[in-house]
């Protein structure tokens, strides 16, 4: 373990990425994510890596995808408006199966919105923002320390599944400074390598056992072709309905097959809970405080915190809905993740929403009030 120090969430995002082997970062300034780019600009050249500030968010996305194809581990960081612009090439990365991590530090939207104020309104944008069908992996940490871990995990998942992974922060965690003790060593997932030579009939987009292809890096002599057109195992475009269906199925299946192992959640005070709060990111900290307050009053309330946002924790929520009498979803938006919780709960218990969208983070009392309303007269 290293020494305890005060660190900002955005800094921890950069530090985690570096620990996971990121050696290329392209970015474009945008509040409240800019400190990630600034930290990378300072630290990457010290470690022999490359930072480049591009002309816009689309270009920075293009640059990380090019760098990734050339063998680098890559990250980009932005906020809601920039993420909207990146959608085009996030879809490209999904289709062409290029490992990359995009950190998204949420602020109030839509449009320019409230640039310095916290929000969690980009949940659906991370899932459904691009055109077409593909799976996505989105992680959302609740503390500075966990931001470091989530950043490492995001890089590792991007490499393992060869796809874009979104590190979904909110302004609360991104700008928070707190005490952290970072690990000296982290596990990293190495770049996947071809298992055959060209002479042995190597096909760059032929899926391995886990449905993920071992695409050769540029400059290693394989002469591969990469395109955002639907392609077959050779990498070249195909107009075949069967190839198209298989390509789209595989983009979904490679994540579905990974199962619950990539769906990270954390339960607190849940053993005997009759009521539950579901929250994520910075809001989960306030929800934790609210749940503690309820416990102190004798209320059997627990907290389920979502760390993996997508794929959604369907099975976990389904189990939870059978355990408790009601679920309160606390989120800093007009209501996004609540729709997923309702879907996964499938009517097994009522799901109420505690929404906030006035530039301010939650206060514990507001979530306490939401729990009390859900419980009605029930104090056990």
């Amino acid at each position, binding site marked *: 373990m290293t020494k305890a120090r005060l660190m900002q969430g955005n800094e921890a995002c950069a530090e985690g990425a570096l620990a996971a082997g990121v050696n290329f970062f392209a970015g474009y300034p945008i509040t409240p994510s800019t400190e990630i780019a600034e930290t990378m600009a300072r630290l990457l050249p010290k470690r*022999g890596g490359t930072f480049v500030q591009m*002309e816009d968010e689309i270009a920075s996305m293009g640059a990380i995808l090019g760098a990734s*194809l050339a063998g680098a581990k890559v990250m980009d960081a932005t906020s809601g408006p920039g993420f909207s612009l990146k959608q085009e090439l996030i879809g490209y990365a999904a289709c062409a199966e290029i490992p990359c991590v995009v950190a998204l530090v949420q602020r109030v939207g839509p449009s320019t919105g409230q640039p310095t104020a916290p929000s969690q309104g980009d949940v659906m944008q991370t899932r459904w923002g691009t055109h077409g069908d593909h799976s996505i992996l989105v992680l959302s940490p609740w503390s500075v320390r966990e931001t470091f871990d989530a950043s490492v995990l995001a890089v590792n998942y991007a490499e393992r599944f060869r796809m874009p992974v979104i590190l979904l922060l909110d302004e609360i965690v991104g700008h928070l400074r707190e005490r952290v003790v970072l690990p000296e060593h982290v596990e990293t997932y190495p770049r996947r390598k071809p298992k055959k030579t060209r002479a042995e009939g190597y096909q760059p987009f032929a899926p391995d056992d886990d449905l993920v292809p071992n695409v050769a890096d540029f400059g290693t002599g394989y002469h591969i072709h990469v395109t955002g057109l639907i392609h077959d195992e050779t990498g070249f475009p195909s107009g075949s309905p069967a190839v198209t269906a298989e390509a789209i199925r595989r983009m979904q299946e490679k994540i579905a097959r990974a199962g619950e192992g990539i769906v990270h959640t954390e339960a607190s005070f849940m053993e005997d809970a009759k009521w539950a709060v579901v929250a994520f990111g910075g809001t989960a900290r306030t929800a934790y405080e609210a749940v503690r307050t309820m416990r102190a009053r004798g209320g059997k309330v627990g907290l389920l915190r979502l760390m993996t946002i997508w794929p959604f924790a369907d099975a976990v929520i389904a189990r939870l809905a059978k355990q408790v009498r009601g679920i309160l979803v606390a989120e800093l938006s007009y209501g996004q993740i609540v729709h997923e919780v309702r879907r996964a709960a499938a009517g097994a218990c009522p799901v109420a929403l505690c929404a906030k969208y006035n530039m301010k983070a939650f206060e514990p009392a507001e979530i306490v009030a939401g729990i009390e309303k859900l419980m009605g007269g029930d104090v056990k």
Partner: protein
Amino acid sequence: MSAEQTAERSFERYFRANRLPHLWCPGCGNGIAMKAIVQAIEKKGLSQDDTVIVSGIGCSSRASGYMDFDTLHTAHGRAIPFATGIKLANPKLNVVVITGDGDCTAIGGNHFIHGCRRNIDLTVVLFNNNIYGMTGGQASPTTPLGAKATTAPYGSVDRPFDACRLAEASGATYVARSTAFHVRHLSDMIAGGFDNKGFSFIEAMVQCPTAYGRKNKMASPAAMMEWMRDHAVMKAAFDKLPDTEKSAGRFPIGLLYQSEDVDYDTAYEVVKERAGGAGK
């Protein structure tokens, strides 16, 4: 096959024979420009393993699929950012960008000028057919004033870009132009770009008989090539022309601009040195 024939067709090893024939229309100039690129590669002895071809979206950008290198067919307008990432992540690679007039100067215009500004070591070949070919003949930023397109049925009133002047003003350190009629010259201009360590821009004027020629009184590919022959003037001669003749549809070809400046990879090495990370 005689030795002479073999030498003459030596460019074929730079193509993916199993991906040909190409999808371009009969009489299209894109194939000429594509061949000029591989002949320049051959002339300069660039290794196939260490050369990456990056393209955008459009007719021109399908070229990457036919060429036997690591090739990347990116999104519309975004070839230069992808190429920038490749070059910075692995500076030993030669990175060639193939783009079109819509791809490079409309949707990718911002990336184009900033690539020039950074002087990133890329060789960008713009296949300029003055039209959006793949979508069926809409006006592009290089469609001449008065020319017809499906989205300019009464003649274009949008003033066109001179992509070479744009490149020069934006900081490119090698700017040249040639045409599909001047095949050897075009290849030489591209080869000259490989010699420049920095942003090299070569505008290749190519004919599009299907989407442009038919609408603009040049129905046959030959007529379009004759037009290029008659209107392209070597830079030195062009500079001496009186203004009245310059404006009569004539345009200069050849090496239009060249300067010495630090390329981005070299500049970033200095950053690494200052930060203490050189050689890591």
